[in-house]
């Protein structure tokens, strides 16, 4: 099997780049660099992966964790300060949930729950892929997702039967 065509890489880039950046932002302060390297690596693969999206999430995950480890000493404070100032989402008037509040609520989640939610909601991965990505069982991934959603719902003041609530600040 040949490598991916430029058109395929461009399509993957357009569809999954934002989700990958958000996924990498959990661990490192420069997620754009990590995602760009992952796409470059994908475009250089002689054999295209069976599941390019899952492959991209896996590469981004590994590289983001490695980058976080290597930069942990020098810029932990700066990264924390930057993450506090800048939301993980682009603010928009059309959103039903405030970007800053969602960022704060997501940051406060345990890592496994946060990873499962980001990979599932924004990455569009199935629970099976989330479980393989995180190295846990399918049921563990599903439970982490459900726990995280429940916590977010509570923190953002979103009731089950309320369509639109006070989540916007």
């Amino acid at each position, binding site marked *: 099997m040949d490598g991916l065509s430029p058109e395929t890489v461009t399509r993957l880039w357009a569809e999954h780049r*934002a989700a990958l950046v958000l996924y990498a932002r959990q661990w490192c302060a420069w997620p754009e660099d990590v995602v760009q390297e992952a796409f470059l*690596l994908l475009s250089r693969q002689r054999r295209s992966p069976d599941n390019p999206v899952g492959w991209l999430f896996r590469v981004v995950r590994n590289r983001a964790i490695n980058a976080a480890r290597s930069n942990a000493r020098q810029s932990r404070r700066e990264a924390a300060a930057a993450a506090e100032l800048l939301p993980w989402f682009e603010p928009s008037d059309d959103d039903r949930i405030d970007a800053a509040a969602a960022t704060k609520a997501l940051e406060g989640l345990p890592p496994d729950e946060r990873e499962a939610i980001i990979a599932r909601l924004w990455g569009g991965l199935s629970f099976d892929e989330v479980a393989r990505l995180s190295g846990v069982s399918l049921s563990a991934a599903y439970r982490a997702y459900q726990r995280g959603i429940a916590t977010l719902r509570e923190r953002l003041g979103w009731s*089950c039967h309320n369509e639109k609530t006070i989540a916007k600040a």
Partner: protein
Amino acid sequence: MVMSQRENNCKGLNRQPLDEFEAALAALRPRVDVATTPEAISSCRDDGALLTTCGAPGGHEFVCIHCGSNPPLISPIRRWGWPAAAAVMASLAACLLVMLITNQSTQVAREQPLLATHAVKPAQQIGRAPAKQMVTTVDAASIPRVARRIGERRTVLSAADLDLPGESVASNPNSRRPIAVSYADIETVEAKLTNAALKRRFLSQ
């Protein structure tokens, strides 16, 4: 085809629709700061401007953590050649150093008892050679006699003359070489004479 329970669970979980809260969350657009175009990725794929491949800068083989490529296969000769050569050179240097130290200590051991050993030899040679011809500084019996000549001939024996081996002088008894010793030399010989009988004889003369 019978599907496993895991596959059934998987399909069931993945088919669950998103509720409103999940849909509202998913509608948030993740922030992306740097606007790199996909064309840049495509152009970088060929020239490798952004992501360098593993190389061997400076001739050193290494595993590139950056691009995560597999480590290059290094032949055992190249892998262990340099450490083996370094070990051989270090052991050779250590052997040379040990030989040098041993040689020096042997020389020192030979040079130290100069007068003490020479003082014994003439005593053994006294019976074989005429005493008057045994004009050697290491001959304890002749030293006072030589010392008496100091005022007459005014010759001064250097320290090198004291080191003359007794055999060479004894074998050439007709030598007219003027020999004398300084008082300092005599005192030195007296001090270093370990043989009690020779010392007594030396002092009595």
